[in-house]
């Protein structure tokens, strides 16, 4: 099945459209990579700071499922 000139033009348009979409996605993901790297750095600073105060603090071991949100004394 041979393509007509018009079909070839449609394919070229599709190529440009998908390239444009990819470039938008690429830019968005680049932004997300930068933000996530910054966030990782900030959270590490925070956990290091708290680890010094709370020796048991760990981000890889599960914390208690529900932290009470009311004070025991006031119940």
């Amino acid at each position, binding site marked *: *099945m041979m393509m007509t000139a018009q079909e070839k033009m449609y394919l070229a348009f599709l190529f440009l459209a998908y390239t444009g979409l990819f470039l938008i996605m690429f830019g968005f993901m680049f932004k*997300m990579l930068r933000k996530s790297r910054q966030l990782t750095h900030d959270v590490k600073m925070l956990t290091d700071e708290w680890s010094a105060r709370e020796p048991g603090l760990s*981000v*890889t071991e599960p914390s208690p*499922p529900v932290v009470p949100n009311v004070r025991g004394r006031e119940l």
Partner: protein
Amino acid sequence: MAKIFRHDGWYWLLLPTMLLALYMDFIWTPDDRVLGASQRIFYFHMGAALVVALAFSVTAAASAGYLLTRNLAWDVWAAASAEIGTVFTSMVMLSGTLWGRAAWGVWWTWDPRLTATLILWVLFAGYLLLRESSDNPARRAAYSAVLALVAFADVPVDYMAIRWWHSIHPVVITAHGVNMDPRMADAMVVSMIALTGLFLAWMVIRIRFLHAEMGIAAVKNAVRTRTGP
């Protein structure tokens, strides 16, 4: 080299790879003798299918890692990979539906391959729902790890479905090699590499965000325990 990885310099490799894949898929490859231009859906479809297999394999391996070690870092890998794998499974089904309409004249048929892929999508959508159902990180990780290992059993079944049962789905990769024009095979391989690169970049982002969430939750719990609510 370490600096390139630390500062995400590797990410720029994705740009030329994906642009090359798009050029090969749309412009460079010849038309199929029977299907014409609609054959070009296939390159994207195969690349996405490879990522699905890769993503759910990572989920299964990380789930086993969690069950063995009870370290939540494994659960983060499993969750991130399952999320991305589910999105790619949706892409595979959507592109397959479009290709099926052009090749077979129907949008959907209960072919073994199509049915196995739909089951895979439902299983991992269920996995993501299960993860939302518990606030207890350890219980959530354990339950979802078991479900991930059960769901992973469908991945080899999905791959072998067209070989074990009577199916109208084409068999591209055979014991004698890739069953297509060499230029088409090249475009398929480049698409697979490009989409795998996309998967890796997305994984890095999701894992970093999930780790940050865990870190914030741990500090929040420590603050609440010390100071009260």
